[in-house]
């Protein structure tokens, strides 16, 4: 939760155009048979994924409503966090599965919150640390006036390594936008 104090790192877009173009070309070649991403079924859009992704469903981005997120693989973790009292059950889509679904072609995700907090986290945190994009808190959707709509969470209670500033800072709540680069 600290990075909001610093600025977001500057992007070197110019330098990356060529790389992204090649990446996208390769991606389309390799994922030619991948199922196209469905459009949200009319629910409120709670997440947009932009940047170096292969599968989009509108306006150059991938948009998700709750139903579309729920259609992805689902996982549940039970953990404590520094921002809640006691243990809670968190349900969501594994970051790895979400990134695979949008065909992410980068190393880093910039995650942004409604309260203007933003943080960069490695794309591999899903695979390496079991990061989850949570949409249910104890089985209930979360409101923006609480931690909603989405919350990137790590299984803090099961892996002591994760109980450090690095991962606490990546655990963005009020999450609504992700950019892959």
């Amino acid at each position: 939760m600290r990075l909001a104090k610093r600025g977001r790192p500057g992007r070197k877009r110019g330098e990356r155009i060529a790389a992204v173009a090649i990446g996208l070309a390769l991606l389309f070649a390799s994922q030619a048979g991948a199922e196209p991403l469905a459009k949200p079924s009319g629910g409120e859009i709670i997440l947009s994924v932009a940047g170096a992704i292969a599968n989009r469903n509108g306006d150059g981005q991938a948009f998700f409503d709750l139903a579309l997120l729920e259609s992805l693989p689902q996982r549940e973790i039970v953990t404590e966090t520094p921002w809640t009292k006691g243990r809670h059950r968190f349900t969501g889509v594994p970051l790895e599965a979400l990134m695979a679904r949008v065909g992410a072609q980068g190393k880093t995700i910039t995650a942004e919150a409604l309260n203007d907090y933003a943080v960069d986290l490695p794309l591999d945190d899903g695979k390496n640390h079991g990061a989850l994009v949570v949409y249910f808190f104890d089985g209930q959707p979360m409101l923006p006036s609480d931690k909603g709509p989405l919350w990137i969470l790590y299984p803090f209670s099961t892996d002591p390594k994760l109980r450090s500033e690095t991962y606490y800072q990546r655990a963005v709540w009020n999450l609504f936008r992700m950019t892959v680069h």
Partner: protein
Amino acid sequence: MGLPLVTRNWRRIFLVCLVLLAVLVLWSAKELAVSISGLRANELDNVGWNASQLEVQLVKLQHLLAEAKAGNPQRLLLQRRWDNLLSRIDPLDAAITPDLNASQPDFAPTFAEVKTEIAEMAAYVRVRNGNLIQAVDVLEGRASALAPPIRRLAVMGDQYWGQLTERRRGALVDKIQSLAFALGGLLLLLCANQVVVLAQGQRLKAMAGALTKALQAADQANMAKTNFLARMSHELRTPLNAIIGFAEVMQAEMFGPVGHPRYKDYSTGILASGRNLLGLVDSVLDVSQIESGNVPMTRELVALHEMARSCVAAIEGQSRGGAVEIANRVPEDLPRLKVDPDHLRKILLQLLDNAVKFGPSGCHVELGARQCDADKLEIWVKDDGPGITPENLKNVLNPFNQVRDPLVFHHEGLGLGLPIAKSLTELNGGEFELSSALGHGTEARLRFDAAA
């Protein structure tokens, strides 16, 4: 010589201290590592961060409310800022700990006041079906009233962070100090050990010097004794030769009869005693020469057969009227030996003399020789006399150690015969072996290289 040698007990105590200090060092280092890894900023400034974020969100909301009031309503953004403010309540609630309450007693009551106020604002918004624009006037007034207590929360959060940091730093310093003390103790102990080891080394060096000096003094004293014995023996021989010579003259009545027959008996006694004494003096001279390494020596080719015959004859001549029988079994066709003939004669005479001297009347003595290997000659002298016990067998080859056996106690001599025979054998490149069993006689075996 300075410090005494450190005793085994002290060593043990030292080792125990060393181990204890080492354990203390390891434990302190581990404690320090735990403390450092426990320094989590998130834990330390959770309250401060959340309180200040609450204040930030309030300020952002106030700004939008003021804009709306001034005729520029931004409905969506206003909704978001309102949600942002509400979303800050629970995290701050979760960050409150008993430690915070003990340290900042005003925090919890102030926060409760803020929560009540925000809940009332939320209720007001709900009554207007969530339409914030309609609630702008009231919300703006209440938000202004909220600013001072939220500011206080932020300040208290910061102060708590300061206290917590101080406390953690103090604990860290304490742990670093105890680690330093343990390490210092360990080093001091090792230094002390080094000092003791050095002192011991010097003491051992001094002792070694003293021992070397003592050894040299003992060697010198022994050499002086040997020289004295050699000179004494030599000096004794001159008058003895005169005594023996004149006794022989008298016994042979070379210049006419000595008168009363008893004088002749006496002269015979003088001659026997003189010869006996000369034998002893010769033995002492031999031993002292051997000890000082000054044995005169020549090497000649010696025919063992002839040497054996003359030695047997000499011993038989002085033996007690043939009471002991000596069998000479030395073959004539043996290769010759390259030794000092005087030494070989002395050896054989000594062995034969011993066998005859210690054997009871009627016992048998045998002198024999054979070629055992291609280039080795073995000579033996054996008897069927009383023999020697195993303990004594170890002693008879040391000078001045005549066997104190009751059976042979009556025999005269210094016990030098066998040691001399052994030393002379070895001096001439031979091996000397003595075996015996009590009641089964004694056997001496000598092995020399045959002359090529």
